[in-house]
């Protein structure tokens, strides 16, 4: 059976990290399974977990005042969910909900933050990876602001 450390070595987010670093990370992690419509994070609540998705799909979404949630992004196998655990005040900015049967590695945020504080090399490695995810999602959000597929009238 594959250990969490072995799995993390194969996950794109953790690619390139040394085995000892992966072992440190695995020490804060557990495997979780989520059914459709189970929440990983709730807007405004403590971001006490950070997830690496193994299989399935998670929707990052926001609740409208009196309507259904609007999906802003999805994360699927090989991607991560959550970066608020790293940024004070460590409160989730959005909901994260499994939309299919989902398996993930869940990291305890306090444990991870403690290890990052104690080992700046680990902290930098994680921050470096999280900022790449943030960059990709920021670019995605900006381009979608353009509403590129909207109707353009005939010339």
């Amino acid at each position, binding site marked *: 059976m594959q250990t969490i450390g072995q799995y993390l070595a194969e996950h794109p987010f953790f690619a390139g990290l040394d085995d000892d670093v992966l072992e440190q990370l695995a020490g804060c992690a557990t495997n979780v399974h989520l059914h459709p419509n189970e929440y990983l994070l709730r807007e405004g609540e403590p971001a006490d977990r950070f997830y690496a998705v193994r299989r399935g799909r998670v929707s990052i979404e926001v609740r409208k005042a009196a309507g259904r949630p609007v999906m802003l992004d999805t994360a699927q196998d090989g991607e991560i969910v959550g970066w608020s655990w790293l940024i004070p005040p460590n409160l989730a900015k959005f909901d994260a909900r499994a939309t299919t049967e989902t398996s993930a590695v869940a990291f305890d945020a306090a444990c991870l933050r403690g290890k990052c504080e104690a080992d700046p090399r680990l902290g930098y490695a994680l921050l470096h990876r999280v900022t790449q995810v943030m960059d990709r999602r920021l670019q995605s959000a900006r381009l979608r602001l353009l509403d590129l597929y909207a109707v353009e009238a005939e*010339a």
Partner: protein
Amino acid sequence: MTSQAAAAARGVPAPDAVAPARRPDPMLPRPFELQRTRRDTHDTYTLELAPLEGGPLAFASGQFTMLGAFGMGEVPISISGDPTRPGPLQHTVRDVGSVTHAIVTAAPGSVLGVRGPLGAGWNVLAAAGGDVVFVAGGIGLAPLRPAILEVCAHRDDYRQVAVLYGARTPMDLLFLEDLGDWAREYGIAVEVTVERGEEDWEGRVGLVTNLIGRAGFAADRTTGFICGPEVMMRYCATAFIEQGVAENRLRLSMERNMKCGVGLCGHCQLRELFLCVDGPVVTYDRLRPLMSRAEL
């Protein structure tokens, strides 16, 4: 075997073989009877047309026609049918203005004018032997559909094939039946994403650009075919290049204000290119310096 001969052997007319000059007067529309209109989404329709005289219109994937409603005008519309099977001319049209509205609301039996086929197509044959990635945004799947069908008809000639498709919402997705068929029957990796989903959507939400890095192709043998809004195509091209795909192996279908369709009027000019004859499909090594320049 020349590429034209090879294309002919596959039943696909090479772009040169279907040049508009085949007809005596390229400005003269050929009358086609509307046989059927299918509503694909809230604003997009697929029409099937049959010529009132002569045989079916031979075309290469990626070519377009100037499709006209008599008394209203004509608009450039890519052909969305199967180039390997003679049959009705298929056009997928989005209802965005007076001419397209007249076209999509025409009753079966109405006569529409068709000039073409026009322009340079995808040249799918050039990708044979390698991996192929199709990236479509919005109604951009319609011009790519003939190329995908051409690959399906000769599936063994290609290695890994992926169709990456992005739309505004789940309600805007086109050709859902085809997407399923391509995955099931032809082993094509079909990935769909939307820009906005609601609670009951189980698929992806995000940019189609983000799917390129996950498509799992071998960069040195991959050809990318991209069709969608220009900004989307530019970012897709960048994503392919980041994966190591050469610029001259990226083919983009450019949309411009085409009028004459035969390289005379200049409405579709992009610096040295007249996109109605030099395009609409152009490789990215030619387009890159032009696409990022203001006022071109």
